[in-house]
């Protein structure tokens, strides 16, 4: 199943991926990460692996988009 792997400690919580996702699959969590941010988390069945979150994210390694496999 399509999904997004979040490297939680690399997220700076800018929210751009949350705004960019056409299916609203991402949201900011409540836990505070190593950088002091409430990192984004993925929780959805709707992901199409379109990659919008990946491209708007300014951090190279925070988001990895997976297609198909669970």
């Amino acid at each position, binding site marked *: 199943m399509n999904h997004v792997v979040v490297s939680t400690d690399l997220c700076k919580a800018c929210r*751009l991926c949350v705004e960019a996702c056409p299916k609203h699959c991402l949201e900011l969590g409540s836990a505070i990460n190593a950088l002091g941010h409430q990192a984004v988390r993925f929780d959805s069945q709707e992901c199409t692996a379109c990659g919008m979150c990946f*491209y708007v994210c300014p951090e*190279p*390694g925070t988001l*990895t*988009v997976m297609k198909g496999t669970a």
Partner: protein
Amino acid sequence: MVKHAKPKGFYDVFERKSQDFPAGETTHYCPGCGHGTVHKLIAEALVDMGLQDRTIFLSPVGCAVFGYYYFDTGNIQCAHGRAPAVGTGVARSLDDAVVISYQGDGDLAGIGTAEIVHAANRNENMAVFFVNNAIYGMTGGQMAPTTLLGQSTTTSPLGRKSEREGGPIHMAEVMSALEGPIYIERCTLSSPAGVMKTRKAVRKALTNQSEKRGFSFVEILSPCPVGWKMTPVQSRSWMASSMESVFPVKRFRDEEAAPKGNGRLPFLDDGALRDLVGAVANEVPTKVSTLSQDLGVKIAGFGGQGVMSAGILLANAAIHEGLHTTWLPSYGPEMRGGKANASVVLSSDAVGSPVVDVPQALLAMNGPSLDAFENHVVPGGLVMVNSSLISRKVERRDVRVFEAPVSDLAAEAGFLKGANIVMLALFALESGVIGIQTLKEIIPKSMKNKDLVEINLRLVDVAEEFHGRE
């Protein structure tokens, strides 16, 4: 299956942040900064297009100064604004290099305006990514050349006003006014669609660059949430509502251009170079003279009297005789009528300095020249005076003086402008430093106007006759 992941164009570990946790995995950029997104688009494209190992990435001064910590490519960090000049050198010396000049608006549109304009005008082979965030981000949000009218910054707290600070510079439009660039586009990171268009533009510019088609300029409107005092999401809305109406997002130029050469000059051997600069001396000296000491000669007069030509003739004659020599002209801004002098150094060995402060010989073609240099001549030196134009006597008693009315002698022979030749020939005869025969061999080779060869050779004869009488 991984569809999108950290591109391999990045280093696995970012050394800049290797001391912090998470170790070496994040950038130094603020949350929501546009640089990270542009970096990602470039890093991804370099790998997808197979250009990574050919790439020389030029970092600017500004927030992107640490490009070399991120891009696993060749990297040069350039002096402020000078990346296009550095890129010119790289592009012209490495035929296969993919040259990326990554610059911000302070770097490119402020301190580096001259470099970018001239590199573009020459259509240098490079891809320029111009990240425009309308502010000086790294130094704390000061007004930039691209700051919008009314925009408040730390140095324009009342808002930028055109009467006071001028208006924002539209760099893509400036590029469009030049004939050089083959590709000019302005993109925006204000929306996911804008990011994807930017991705296309990055690839277009890199395609042009990998095929060496010329100068590509991609301006990318980019947010600086911290400098603008907005959240990352607010900053995207502000870009769409304010920035894009001032900086229209569009493609300005996309030319079908054939691959261009590297602009390098052809290889020229010594003979070709000699022909090109009109060198007249023989490759192989006709004889080898020696001098017991270096000889500094000052030939001085007013512009138009041929003091420079006389100096070149003397230097060429010296080369012809196997000596080392230099010729150094000195003259005012006016081409004719001003004060002029030529310094010629003759030596048996390599010449250390072409400057003649203390001449062994002074060839004074007019009064002011004698006034200016008489006292500089070394004791025991030779002072040659054009007595046609200099009525006074040489005051020094410790120098050898030779007076000759060289202007009159030349005029009587029918060629007043040849007074310099008469003077030079007399110097050759009086000093013995160069042979009169050498001078006669050099004159035909050095005269561009061949009609003047005969009269100039006759003037050497006139000098010989005069010297014989004296």
